[in-house]
């Protein structure tokens, strides 16, 4: 039992931590690639300075994403060996495909990009960063294909005591991933957009490197606004899909205990998880029906009815995930989303009028908005993964059936504490470096004299 709790905690820690770095990689890669594209097209040195400045921040963040991703690949086998046996036939495939199709590309071409400024032509160098940007998003796709199988199993049959793949195409076109992928990737774009806006705001406040940061802000505000609108729209569609496929997750996220038609949406609820009711709630009538079906009428099933249905289908047991945690993580994500939308629109306005110079409060607010997408991302994953409880694979395997049986408690403790320690130290170093380079700002362009001057001897002499 303790092993189970430790494994869950460790997975929650390492995965949430990993996903602090991934979103910025997804979005900032695209932004840096766009900046370099403008540099190659116009030859304007400002764009080169921008590419190098944001590129440096991208690299520090990327390194953290890569090394924490290693843990992801290993810990299914280490802590969740019985899960791995049960789903390996299906779940392993997208992971292997991800490595072969995307991760090799991403890592190899990043090396080329970083070290190739003087060795590659401008166009090939530009191609390298686009490949990195596209491959990292492709990589996200295959990982989400794997995750989507845990949420909404498709393309399988239960045979030989495990889930076996019967349809690879069904797996990679899982309806769940078709919503989850754009939602996740666009959240990454939002994260990067607000990161660039926030850092630019810092320099605009200080009135340093104005050429670089006015342009950066301008690109990021458009990028950020479009992405935020996209995330919200797709989020709504995704919610409608989840009401159909994972009704318990959504009911819990709304603390919606009783079936209602039309169903109201609680803005606030004082949740009594033991007594399975809300002691107090502030409700908008019919809004939950609208969010579920795009119509102000429609029955939304409540937790009690869904629990009964689950008992009928899967046998006795508790199928209700932690309601209050889900209710509040959902609201944190939504509030953050609304905040970001407002900030992006405000940003667009101030950018157009260039009025931010007279309104330092706005720039300060923008700077302090940098953490908001991170909070929204984490809350979103919390909703997705805690909402899946008690299942590790929805409807097929419960979490406690997936944990490793051959690992001792002491080993798990050592690993958990080890990860906690090393991740904390790395977080401190990462933040220190990020802040340092943000404050330092872009460097003056280096002359390209090196290209001709210092060719080393060839390898074989």
């Amino acid at each position, binding site marked *: 039992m303790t092993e189970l709790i430790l494994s869950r905690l460790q997975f929650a820690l390492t995965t949430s931590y990993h996903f602090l770095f991934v979103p910025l990689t997804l979005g900032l890669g695209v932004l840096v690639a766009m900046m370099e594209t403008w540099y190659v097209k116009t030859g304007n040195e400002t764009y080169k300075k921008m590419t190098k400045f944001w590129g440096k921040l991208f690299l*520090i963040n*990327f*390194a953290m994403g890569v*090394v*924490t*991703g*290693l843990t992801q*690949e*290993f810990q*299914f*086998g*280490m*802590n969740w060996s*019985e899960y*791995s*046996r049960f*789903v*390996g*036939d299906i779940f*392993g495939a997208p*992971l*292997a*495909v991800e*490595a*072969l*199709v995307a*991760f*090799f*590309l991403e*890592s*190899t071409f*990043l*090396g*080329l990009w970083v*070290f*190739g400024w*003087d060795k*590659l032509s401008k166009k090939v160098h530009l191609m390298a960063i686009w490949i990195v940007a596209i491959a990292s998003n492709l990589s996200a796709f295959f990982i989400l294909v794997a995750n989507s199988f845990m949420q909404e199993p498709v393309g399988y049959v239960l045979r*030989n005591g495990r889930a*076996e*793949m019967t349809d690879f195409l069904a797996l990679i076109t899982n309806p769940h991933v078709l919503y989850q992928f754009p939602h996740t990737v666009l959240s990454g774009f939002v994260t990067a957009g607000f990161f660039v806006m926030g850092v630019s705001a810092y320099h605009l406040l200080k009135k340093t490197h104005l050429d670089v940061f006015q342009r950066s802000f301008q690109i990021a505000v458009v990028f950020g606004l479009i992405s935020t609108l996209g995330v919200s729209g797709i989020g709504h569609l995704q919610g409608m899909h989840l009401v159909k496929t994972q009704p318990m997750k959504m009911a819990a996220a709304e603390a919606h205990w009783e079936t209602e038609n039309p169903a109201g949406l609680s803005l606030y609820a004082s949740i009594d998880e033991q007594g399975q009711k809300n002691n107090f709630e502030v409700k908008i009538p019919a809004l939950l029906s609208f969010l579920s079906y795009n119509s102000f009428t429609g029955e939304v099933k409540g937790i009690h009815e869904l629990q009964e249905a689950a008992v009928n289908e899967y046998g006795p047991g508790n199928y209700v995930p932690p309601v209050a945690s889900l209710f509040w993580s959902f609201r944190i994500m939504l509030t953050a989303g609304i905040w970001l939308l407002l900030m992006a629109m405000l940003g667009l306005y101030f950018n157009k009028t260039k009025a931010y110079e007279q309104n330092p409060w706005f720039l300060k607010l923008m700077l302090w908005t940098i953490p908001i997408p991170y909070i929204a991302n984490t809350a979103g994953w919390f909703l997705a993964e805690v909402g899946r409880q008690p299942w590790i694979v929805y409807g097929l395997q419960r979490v406690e059936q997936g944990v*490793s049986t*051959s*690992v001792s408690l002491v*080993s798990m403790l050592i*690993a958990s504490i080890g990860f906690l320690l*090393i991740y904390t130290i*790395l977080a401190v*170093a*990462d933040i220190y470096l990020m802040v*340092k380079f943000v404050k330092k700002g872009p460097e003056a362009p280096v002359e390209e004299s*090196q290209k001709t*001057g*210092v*060719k*080393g*001897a*060839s*390898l*074989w002499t």
Partner: protein
Amino acid sequence: MDLNILWFILITVLFVGFFFLEGFDFGVGILLPFLGKNDQERRVVINTIGPHWDGNEVWLITAGGAMFAAFPNWYATLFSGFFLALFLVLFSLIIRGVAFEFRSSDPSPLWRNTWDWVIFTGSLLSAILWGVAVTNLLKGVPINAEMQYVGTFFDLLSPYTIIGGLTTLLVFMFHGALFLSLKTTGDMAERSLKIAQRIALVAIPVVLLLAGLTYYQTDLFASLGAGITLIGSGVTLILAVLFLKSRKNGWAFVTNGLTILLFTVSVFWGLFPRVMISSLNPNWSLTIYNASSSPYTLKIMTIVAMIMVPIVLIYQGWTYWVFRNRVTEKNLHY
């Protein structure tokens, strides 16, 4: 040939790629504090592997993913069974990976020194652990009828497996030193050669010892092919030393690379058709059949791999071509 065999070969290839490429990365990382006498020199050392180490590490990620996809029971038993050993592997790869990026980002000597030793420790631990892991696979570990590992972390440590760890450590260090002698110039290249010679003096007896112990501790020599490749890896190592003596360090690098290749092939050949040997009962061993995925999954994965592996080889090879020149103090990134 059935797909189970094909995937066993493919995973062998992935590990050969990983050990060959990341092998010199580990070696370079271990030699870093000793070869680099000042910050500039250390930067040169790190920059020799700068554009490549990340791409090289993906060979391991892919091998892990391929084991998961093709032989889920192998992946599950190995990773949960070797839990602490793999935690240490992760730990070393994590600290080492960020260290490359972090080190160059601050000029303070304390900062740089710290990360240099992190690179050293991460590389050293990894290099040893892989040898320990591989020899444990050969020797067999306690696995019960339910495919569960029933030993502890300390069951993985025996004189034989420790010699295994020492072997990979020395061979990777030799590999790294030879790589540096090819990728640097002047004094640095000379010193790399000297260190390579010294490592070789220790490596040869240790490898011979390992080969001898393998005869007593494992059934590797029951397979003629595995036995021949293992002996072959000893021969290529000696050849590498001879090439080094006549200062043909390009050839020394290639022949020592062959040592890594042959050694890895020999291990997998010796295992075949098992993937993990049970020391409790031979019938409880995991094989390429009882540990594998369904034929459908293997077929899908085969199609993906047949298309992607050659493409990966081509573009990764191309990056080595782009960065084929020696690294000097004038063109550093890290």
